[in-house]
């Protein structure tokens, strides 16, 4: 069974400060990791996935298999980054396509 842990329920930073949202996972096989974001009154949407290795809205995340982590980082937070962030895992094999989510972290960027 897989598990995703986001240790912080709330993270508050000032505009322009660096931000790191933590995500740790446990899974015996090869995982595919995602970050989803939900802005106020909007639907859950994909922010980035580790396979694509891209930067979206200035956010990056690197899969660290040794530490089983997939932390989300941005060097300079903006007020519009305030949202709920969810880390999610999906097995890379064909066993199923279900996503396993962490509990989410609410990011508040203060002016």
């Amino acid at each position, binding site marked *: 069974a897989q598990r995703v842990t986001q240790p912080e329920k709330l993270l508050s930073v000032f505009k322009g400060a660096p931000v790191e949202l933590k995500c740790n996972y446990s899974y015996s096989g090869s995982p595919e990791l995602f970050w989803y974001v939900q802005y106020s009154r*909007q639907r*859950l949407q994909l922010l980035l996935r580790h396979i694509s290795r891209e930067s979206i809205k200035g956010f990056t995340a690197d899969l660290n298999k040794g530490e089983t982590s997939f932390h989300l980082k941005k060097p300079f937070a903006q007020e519009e980054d305030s949202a709920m962030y969810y880390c999610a895992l999906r097995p890379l094999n064909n066993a199923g*396509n*279900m996503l396993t*989510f962490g*509990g989410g972290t609410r990011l508040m960027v203060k002016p």
Partner: protein
Amino acid sequence: EAGVTQFPSHSVIEKGQTVTLRCDPISGHDNLYWYRRVMGKEIKFLLHFVKESKQDESGMPNNRFLAERTGGTYSTLKVQPAELEDSGVYFCASSQGRKNIQYFGAGTRLSVL
């Protein structure tokens, strides 16, 4: 292109009543998923359809929940009879193709009183 559509956006019912939630996936998406988030908990998987077939229903909590996807288009999730612990937000997602990225609907907030 229209996204995943869920109806209703909010439903308030009394314990013991029946509620049916509907999800319209993105046109052409064979994969359809139901998830839910109950108060204070993580978003959890309920089940996965491929076209009209149930691929994985391991997350369905009990037999009060019935999901259907007749014709492989829209899906319904019926809760009968509803209990207090069923309150939460029910999300639907759909995906297609090699990347299989799941696109989510806005969710249905279910309140069982």
